[in-house]
């Protein structure tokens, strides 16, 4: 950077700041305005208040939606982490059929969600599965599986093959090697993958709308609320979701950076 002449450095800084402000300031508007009341369609900036949060806490619809979201998220995480890890273990180092399987796993993640959602909807109808939270969980799992699979596979590939050899060499059985060497070395990747999976499931909307029954998850609820007109609790809700998502991302990053690297850097 220091190689650039000074005026261009200043110009560059100005442009960068402007872009950052334009792109990211809208994110802060709901957070800030969630602390003020709205009357006659206008924000009253004179008196900060927590009333929107109080209103949100009293909104049983939203609380029910939040509960549904959490149930779906936890089920999705458990299903996708278990199956993603098993798939990664099975296909690690195996050539035959691996690229085809990877293609299949990544397809729902890369396709427009509306296509994935419609495909699932048609599938559920064909096999006669009623739309319910179960179908939502299945839909989310299919969607997030790619992330967990990829995360675990990457860790497996970066794990030295000699670790497993050393374990056998020292007299361990296959089972002991799996539980004591392979799994502990995968665990942080699994936790990281789980957090990402949860975050994805948390705000997945399109597939959910298509395959859900009578219950709605938080983003679906939010979307319905927006259709009926702006309500101040929405600001509070958005602020809370934002905070929660940021927290998840920070956690995921912590688990996905290998511990060894982190220690070496210190």
């Amino acid at each position: 950077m220091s190689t650039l002449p000074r005026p261009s450095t200043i110009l560059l800084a100005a442009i960068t700041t402007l872009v950052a402000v334009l792109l990211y300031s809208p994110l802060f508007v709901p957070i800030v305005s969630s602390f003020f009341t709205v009357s006659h369609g206008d924000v009253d900036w004179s008196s900060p208040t927590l009333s929107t949060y109080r209103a949100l806490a009293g909104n049983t619809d939203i609380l029910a939606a939040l509960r549904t979201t959490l149930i779906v998220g936890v089920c999705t995480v458990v299903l996708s982490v278990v199956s993603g890890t098993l798939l990664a273990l099975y296909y690690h180092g195996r050539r035959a059929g691996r690229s085809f399987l990877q293609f299949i796993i990544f397809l729902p993640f890369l396709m427009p969600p509306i296509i994935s959602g419609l495909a699932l909807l048609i599938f559920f109808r064909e096999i006669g599965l009623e739309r319910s939270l179960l179908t939502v969980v299945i839909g989310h799992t299919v969607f997030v599986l790619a992330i967990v699979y990829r995360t675990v596979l990457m860790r497996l590939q970066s794990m030295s093959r000699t670790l497993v050899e050393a374990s056998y060499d020292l007299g361990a059985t296959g089972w002991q090697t799996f539980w004591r060497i392979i799994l502990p070395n995968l665990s942080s990747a699994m936790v990281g993958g789980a957090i990402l999976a949860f975050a994805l499931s948390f705000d997945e909307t399109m597939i959910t709308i298509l395959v859900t029954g009578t219950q709605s998850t938080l983003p679906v609820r939010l979307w319905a609320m927006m259709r009926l007109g702006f309500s101040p609790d929405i600001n509070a809700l958005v602020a809370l979701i934002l905070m929660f998502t940021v927290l998840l991302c920070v956690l995921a990053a912590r688990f996905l950076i290998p511990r060894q690297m982190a220690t070496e850097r210190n």
Partner: protein
Amino acid sequence: MNQNTDLLTLRSVSKSYGTVPVLHDIDLSIRDGEFLTVLGPSGSGKTTVLRLIGGLEPLTSGEIRLDGQEISRMPINKRPFNTVFQDYALFPHMTVSGNVGYGLSVRHIRRKEIASRVAQALELVQLGRFADRFPAQLSGGQRQRVALARALICQPRLILLDEPLAALDLELRRQMQEFLKSIQREIKTTFLFVTHDQEEAIGMADRICVMQAGHIRQLGTPHDLYYKPNCEFVARFFGENNLVAGKLGPVQGEQRPIETALGRLVCSISGQPHLKTAPDGASAFAAFRPEALHLADAKDSSNRFSGTIADLAFAGSSTVATITAGTVDPAQRLRLRMPSRIDGSALKPGAAVSLCFAPHEGHLVLA
């Protein structure tokens, strides 16, 4: 601990990866308690030998016997051998004592006993203070010693070491060589050490097995290999050497002449019966070490020839002269190593010199 009994025997062992053969009909006996080094350039199959013995790879054909019992098909985790891997393969999520105790804990040995044996093993490799560290917090040499402690705690019959010093810098490598050798003497366990570094091999081994292209070329003490190489490859690979091609002449007792471009050179054949039986006129090389070659004085009569000094290189305690002689291929110059002198050498590049070596310091290898 009788060095004359065979611990492990490989009989006509071959190994191929797919259709690519990497080992051809290897026969090798490892004696109980010895430090055996397998030495060879990369791609010679030396690591494959170690992996076959350790059970990390299946044999293609042949058999491996431990105390006379066939173990070729014994699974890796049942073999009483432990390996020190080239990359150490320490378990990153376990502490030093967790790593060292792993071999005991998978055998369900009582915790108390594990703790005391781990402490002993760490004491042996001088890492007692580091028991609670993680591998990432250790230096290369320390990791190396943890890997060694982890291998020897199970009291294996044989410890397999796969180029364990390759990743260390020169000074540390020297220290570790001495360290490994002293540990081996202390625990009296058989070591099979794989390396491509001949200095390492000379420094540590009781016996060296030289491999090339999937074959064992020679097996013997470092002294034997240095002074009685049995083939051109060993003569060239093992230490610096001068090789001059020629045709064998008739045997004269324990010596045999060879007609070369430098004239008739007489070399010792004592203790090498295959050189006695080789027919007259067979192609061979006269082999003599740079330190055996010296400037001739008036009383030297045999193995005398003249040459021109092409270059002089000061190498600390010794000085090496590169010499062109006779009609010897100019690409293949002779080397002469002499003690350095504080007042410099009287020789100058371009000087014509008369050279010779004593017949008992010259050897023959068949081409």
